[in-house]
């Protein structure tokens, strides 16, 4: 009998990096067509499409994608949720299937960021001739750099420093060692934008962006797309044995936003909504953190990875530093984290990230991750967070048979 479960039938990420040869919709098409092929289905089988592109200004990316791969008249949801955009597309298709409105759906995220400079901040128009208060906070000029920082590196640097202040033990070197781990992991991932091992000295000695994050401790701006085909349990049971064998179960799919918290409107609190998403996901999936075989978490900066060990409950509260120092999150450790190389080396084409990290986990569960395969992986977790904030957590499980 069919359960209410939803499965990943096909999934793909493009190799992240520089793709000057293609437009945004073409890059989305590359991922979408490969995901459909991976699932053994076609665009004609899709009953719903959710797509996201955050910074490309492409307008309705879902419809632009349809013009590249097939206009079938199905409902399209164009989603935008900062760095959680890809996870939101996935969650949207998941909800359509859970609601019984579709058996098969396609989720796509795409971004072209190669050569982009500093993200975030960004000013609006101010009157330079006569100081004029603008907006809800009555600013008379751009506040970035004058009243703290609104740039991503500085915001996430403070998130790590706040953890260091609260619990102690985290230093510049701790954060740099996390980055060293991820860069080491990336050497085994042919899909990563950068596959270069870096020594601790190289990382700490590189250009400082926002203390304590140097350049290699920041996510890589690059081009990339990822797509997933989702299927209902009832539909999956009618498909070929090989499709069923490679299907990956979505045991939990959770999206949260910021609950009110003192200070969250000054320094984004990326902790509470992540912890809540993780708690809900573990409950939905009926798994505990210690059951996980691998985790892909949102290391947009090295400082962020540390706090998410704690937020995702991979360690006891306040013990993220000792969790890292125990060697647990290394690929040969007790609970490998970011074996893809993470956003610091795999790259962070923003709207693609929330599906690309699901692809990474699914790849291991299928036993298809090649040189970087985590042997015997059965359960994995993928996490993203976008400032604003939105947090997506997905727990995936290998097919039973």
């Amino acid at each position, binding site marked *: 009998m069919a359960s209410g479960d939803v499965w990943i039938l096909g999934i793909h990420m493009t190799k992240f990096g520089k793709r000057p040869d293609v437009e945004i919709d073409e890059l989305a098409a590359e991922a979408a067509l490969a995901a459909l092929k991976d699932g053994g289905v076609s665009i004609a089988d899709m009953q719903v499409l959710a797509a996201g592109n955050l910074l490309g200004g492409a307008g309705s990316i879902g419809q632009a994608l349809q013009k590249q791969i097939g206009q079938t008249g199905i409902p399209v949801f164009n989603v935008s949720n900062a760095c959680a955009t890809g996870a939101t597309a996935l969650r949207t298709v998941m909800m359509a299937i859970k609601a019984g409105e579709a058996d098969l759906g396609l989720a796509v995220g795409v971004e072209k960021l190669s050569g982009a400079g500093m993200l975030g901040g960004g000013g609006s128009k101010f009157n330079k001739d*006569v100081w004029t208060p603008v907006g809800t906070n009555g600013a008379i000029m751009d506040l970035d750099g004058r009243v*703290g*920082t609104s740039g991503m590196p500085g915001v996430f640097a403070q998130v790590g420093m706040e953890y260091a202040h609260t619990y102690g033990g985290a230093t510049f070197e701790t954060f740099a060692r996390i980055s060293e781990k991820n860069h080491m992991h990336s050497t085994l991932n042919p899909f990563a934008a950068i596959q270069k091992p870096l020594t601790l000295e190289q990382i700490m000695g590189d250009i400082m962006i926002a203390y304590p994050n140097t350049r290699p401790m920041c996510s890589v701006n690059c081009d990339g797309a990822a797509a997933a085909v989702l299927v209902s349990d009832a539909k999956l049971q009618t498909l070929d044995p090989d499709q069923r064998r490679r299907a990956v179960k979505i045991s939990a799919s959770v999206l949260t936003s910021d609950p009110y918290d003192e200070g969250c409107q000054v320094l984004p609190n990326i902790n509470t909504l992540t912890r809540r998403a993780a708690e809900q996901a573990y409950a939905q999936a009926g798994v505990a953190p210690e059951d996980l075989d691998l985790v892909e978490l949102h290391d947009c900066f090295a400082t962020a990875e540390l706090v998410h060990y704690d937020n995702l409950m991979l360690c006891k509260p306040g013990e993220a530093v000792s969790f890292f120092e125990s060697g647990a999150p290394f690929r040969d450790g007790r609970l490998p984290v970011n074996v893809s190389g993470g956003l610091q080396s795999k790259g962070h084409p923003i709207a693609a990230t929330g599906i690309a990290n699901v692809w990474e986990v699914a790849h291991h569960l299928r036993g298809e991750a090649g040189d970087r395969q985590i042997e015997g992986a059965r359960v994995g977790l993928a996490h993203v967070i976008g400032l604003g904030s939105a947090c997506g957590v997905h727990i995936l499980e290998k097919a039973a048979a």
Partner: protein
Amino acid sequence: MTAVPVISSLALDPPRLVANECTACGARFFGRRAACAACFNEEFRSAELPTEGEVVAFTIVAFAAPGVPTPYVAATIDLGGTKVQANILEVEPSPEHVQLGQKVRLTTYSLGQDTQGTEAVGFGFTPIEKG
């Protein structure tokens, strides 16, 4: 000469930060809110914040958007239980000269004049000398 604060939550003469405080639950906000994000009450009153507090997080921004002078120290400061974001001024922008837990005090400075001679007043925090 007239003066105008860089943001509306900075009050002048004497300089202090003023939050909009929810009359029901006491949650504090900088800038206008239609309703309280914590309890949805729609009434607010002004609440003056202490001018001295503690650094609970900081960063030294070395690369920023075009037009923003670097390096500078940006920090999250706890003012008697209410957090604010601001720069730390009059310190060497290096990790050796800024500390978590450091006690700081509000200060203001000129951000220049407009064509009518009105002075824009910015703010930041400076370390309070120990002893």
